[in-house]
């Protein structure tokens, strides 16, 4: 080949090469950009659940934090908590509703108007009937449980008792629908029997999200496993003994994000291997949180709540307490109950739960709740002399049945600590471990033989009614299924609770603050000891960690991975 042709050929080759390189780099840049964009929106969020598995993801049967955490990602609510950090995330704002409800002058009728264009994950429209169906399933006697009764929904709604088969209709429900809940097109009207100041907050519970109007009733404990939903995600697969998979709902166009393309939850994982997987970035986080034995290590390794950090600690709405059975034996005595508030060590009980487990508490209401005022009535460390002087003869030689969860190492250690402290106070303690896996069954049964038992409460909704009235109104006591584990029923206190529940605004806050103090100084049916924290560790792929105080965990739909 002649030189000039060689040169031409060389230049041509170089040109082709440059073109190829430019194209490749362009593709790579584009790919990198796409990868970065993918990190912003996309990827699979891999989650373990070492606390066990979901009780159920059926919205009207779910009643534990982890269930609600997932339902928060899949449900479309009339009003909902935005995915924001701190107090901004605790203010409910309209989601499916165009605005806050119109409330009648007498406070008994709530009207919601839905936005246009709302759809379920299967493409079908969301109408007011979707929300009406939720009310029916939370109260229907055809469901495995009628959880709406626990929050008094059957008495609050017009026609509630006739539908649920309670009150005057006990065992004989007479209606197929709740007459007080009316749905027409995109308008939902709810008629109440009385003014319920916390009703708007109540409807932000996961029980009241949009469900298909033909979603069946079920008497299965785990409910309906898979169904179309209208939130940022929907349940694509649900094996409670294996994997639960959430996929992005392409029909959701609301304000809530859905960053990960898919959320893959592995149930029933081992907590120790789960922590190893997260440290190795094979899994992104564990819904069961960080076991007590790992908290100190992760705090040291990653710091606590650092920006883009990996170890996160957040306060919850949960308060742990030692319930005292006021209907039985030695714990019927108020002086003894007061003495236990001086004699049991709050700090010591918290220490067993590990570093960053919680903050000491000596009252029922928690910080941030309307009506909360720090009381500082009792010490955080045991004051044996004060306890003995308050308890007097009631404490010395008192027989106490100490009931605890024998299957939990942590709770067993707490029980052993309490046994030691109670013995020091002069009581005779009988240890009563529960080893069948049904810890709450005996507690919920009237006539239960325990005197002292660890229990607690997490918010159903942000209102002091949920902490005080739900737990301490003895008129709700039934043969089984009780929440009032103290079996406390005082007519004067009941009347005060009724008055406080009817108030609103500042008056309500003042009334509940007074109830909180009265409970802990005059009746003392419990020993509160901590407001719990939640502790989580994440992989290095997780970004945009937004912690929800309400769900005691991260907003799954807002998490970015990649």
């Amino acid at each position, binding site marked *: 080949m002649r030189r000039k042709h060689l040169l031409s050929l060389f230049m041509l080759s170089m040109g082709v090469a440059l073109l190829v390189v430019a194209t490749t780099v362009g593709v790579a840049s584009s790919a990198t950009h796409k990868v970065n964009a993918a990190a912003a929106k996309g990827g699979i969020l891999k989650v373990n659940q070492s606390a066990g598995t979901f009780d159920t993801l059926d919205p009207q049967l779910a009643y534990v934090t982890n269930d609600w955490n997932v339902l928060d990602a899949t449900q479309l609510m009339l009003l909902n908590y935005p995915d924001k950090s701190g107090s901004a995330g605790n203010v409910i704002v309209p989601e499916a509703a165009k605005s806050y409800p119109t409330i009648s002058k007498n406070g008994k009728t709530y009207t919601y108007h839905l936005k246009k264009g709302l759809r379920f994950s299967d493409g079908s429209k969301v109408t007011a009937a979707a929300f009406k169906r939720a009310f029916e399933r939370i109260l229907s006697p055809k469901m495995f449980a009628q959880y709406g009764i626990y929050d008094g929904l059957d008495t609050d709604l017009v026609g509630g008792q006739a539908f649920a088969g309670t009150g005057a209709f006990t065992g004989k429900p007479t209606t197929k629908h709740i007459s007080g809940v009316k749905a027409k097109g995109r308008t939902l009207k709810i008629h109440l029997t009385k003014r319920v100041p916390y009703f708007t907050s109540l409807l932000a519970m996961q029980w009241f999200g949009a469900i298909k109007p033909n979603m069946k009733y079920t*008497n299965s404990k785990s409910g309906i496993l898979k169904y179309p939903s209208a939130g940022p995600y929907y349940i694509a697969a649900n094996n409670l003994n294996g994997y639960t998979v959430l996929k992005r709902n392409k029909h959701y166009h609301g304000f809530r994000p859905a960053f990960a393309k898919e959320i893959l939850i592995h149930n029933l994982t081992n907590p120790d291997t789960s922590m190893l997987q997260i*440290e190795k970035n094979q899994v992104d986080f564990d819904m069961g949180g960080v076991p007590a034995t790992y908290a100190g290590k992760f705090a040291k390794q990653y710091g606590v709540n650092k920006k883009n950090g990996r170890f996160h600690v957040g306060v919850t709405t949960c308060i742990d307490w030692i319930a005292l059975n006021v209907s039985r034996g030695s714990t019927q005595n108020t002086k003894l109950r007061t003495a236990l508030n001086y004699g049991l060590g709050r700090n010591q009980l918290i220490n067993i739960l590990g570093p960053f487990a919680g903050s000491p508490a000596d009252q029922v209401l928690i910080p941030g709740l309307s009506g909360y005022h720090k009381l500082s009535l009792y010490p955080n460390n045991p004051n044996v002399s004060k306890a003995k002087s308050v308890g007097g003869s009631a404490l010395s030689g008192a027989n106490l049945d100490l009931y605890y969860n024998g299957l939990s190492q942590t709770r067993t250690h707490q029980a052993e600590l309490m046994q030691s402290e109670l013995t020091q106070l002069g009581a005779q303690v009988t240890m009563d471990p529960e080893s069948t896996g049904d810890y709450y069954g005996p507690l919920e049964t009237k006539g239960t033989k325990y005197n002292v038992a660890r229990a607690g409460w997490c918010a159903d909704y942000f209102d002091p009614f949920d902490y005080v009235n739900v737990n301490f109104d003895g008129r709700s006591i039934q043969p089984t299924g009780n929440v009032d584990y103290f079996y406390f029923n005082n007519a004067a206190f009941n009347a005060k609770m009724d008055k406080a529940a009817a108030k609103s605004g500042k008056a309500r806050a003042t009334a509940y603050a007074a109830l909180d103090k009265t409970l802990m100084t005059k009746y003392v049916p419990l020993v509160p000891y901590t407001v719990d924290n939640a502790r989580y560790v994440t992989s290095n792929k997780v970004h945009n960690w937004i912690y929800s105080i309400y769900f005691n965990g991260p907003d799954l739909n807002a998490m970015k991975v990649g």
Partner: protein
Amino acid sequence: MTAFVIRRLFWAIFLFLVATIAAYVLFFIIPTNPAALAAGKAATPVVVKHISHVMHLDLPIYQQYWLFLWNMVRHGSLGYSFVNQLPVRGLIRQDAPVTMSLVFGGAVFWLALSIPVGIISALRPRSILDRSAMIFVLIGISAHPVWIGLILAYLIGYRLGLTPISNYCPLVPSHSIGVPCSGPLQWFEHMILPWMTFMLLFAALYVRLIRATVIETMSEDFVRTARAKGASSGRVLVQHVLRNSMLPVVTILGMDLGLALGGAVFTETVFSLHGLGQQLITAATSDDLPVVTGILVFACIAVIVFNFIVDVAYAWLDPRIRLTT
């Protein structure tokens, strides 16, 4: 041989009936009210009575058992879970491959380790290898499988990063939702640590057993005769010693495969393998009687089948067995 197999088959059927009667009595007769468990928290007495009728609990016991057996044999049905009303048969079908992978794979590993180590220990008694093998035996017998599993997960999976730390991938490739990994390679990778855990548990015992039987067999007259006739050491070992030494090993293997189904729960828990062991724990703690009964029946059948296979293998290995039984 045929007559022997038929006799063993009838014995297996008899054992199956005894096992199912025991399971039914334990879980449906003794508990005070299975219908109440099935009915749920808020169930009224009317609902409980209705469910009792649906579950045939209002019939005489022998009729209840007959229906239970008929459903099992004729329809292959083991009932429905109280918790999620899914067929128990389906749950077992889903979980059994995981446990089978663990048990059979573990058995292959433990035999592959214990046979050569046991033989070498027997051929070189009181050597360093023999003593090391005995220390290994002691650790294997003493250590809890949970501890072994966690140590392996930490050292090999986490520190060295040589294997996945936990989880299970099905052997058969699948693109179903809720199956994040599958295929032979992924299955094998994810099963290495569980197999090693299982292997260490049982290999320890088998090394000791094989060592003892080989030493005993080597002192037999027929072995001395074979040597005297000029057979090489290798030939003596393979043709004469091993075949006779394996008889007790085969017997124990059959029993251990059945027991291993129960022991698998620890390994399944550590490595988050959703097998029958873990399913059994979940069902037992949530009072899900049909699932517990179903797994128990399945395990009984598995043990009966394994022992049947062992008996036949035993008869094949030793012709004297078929003639005398």
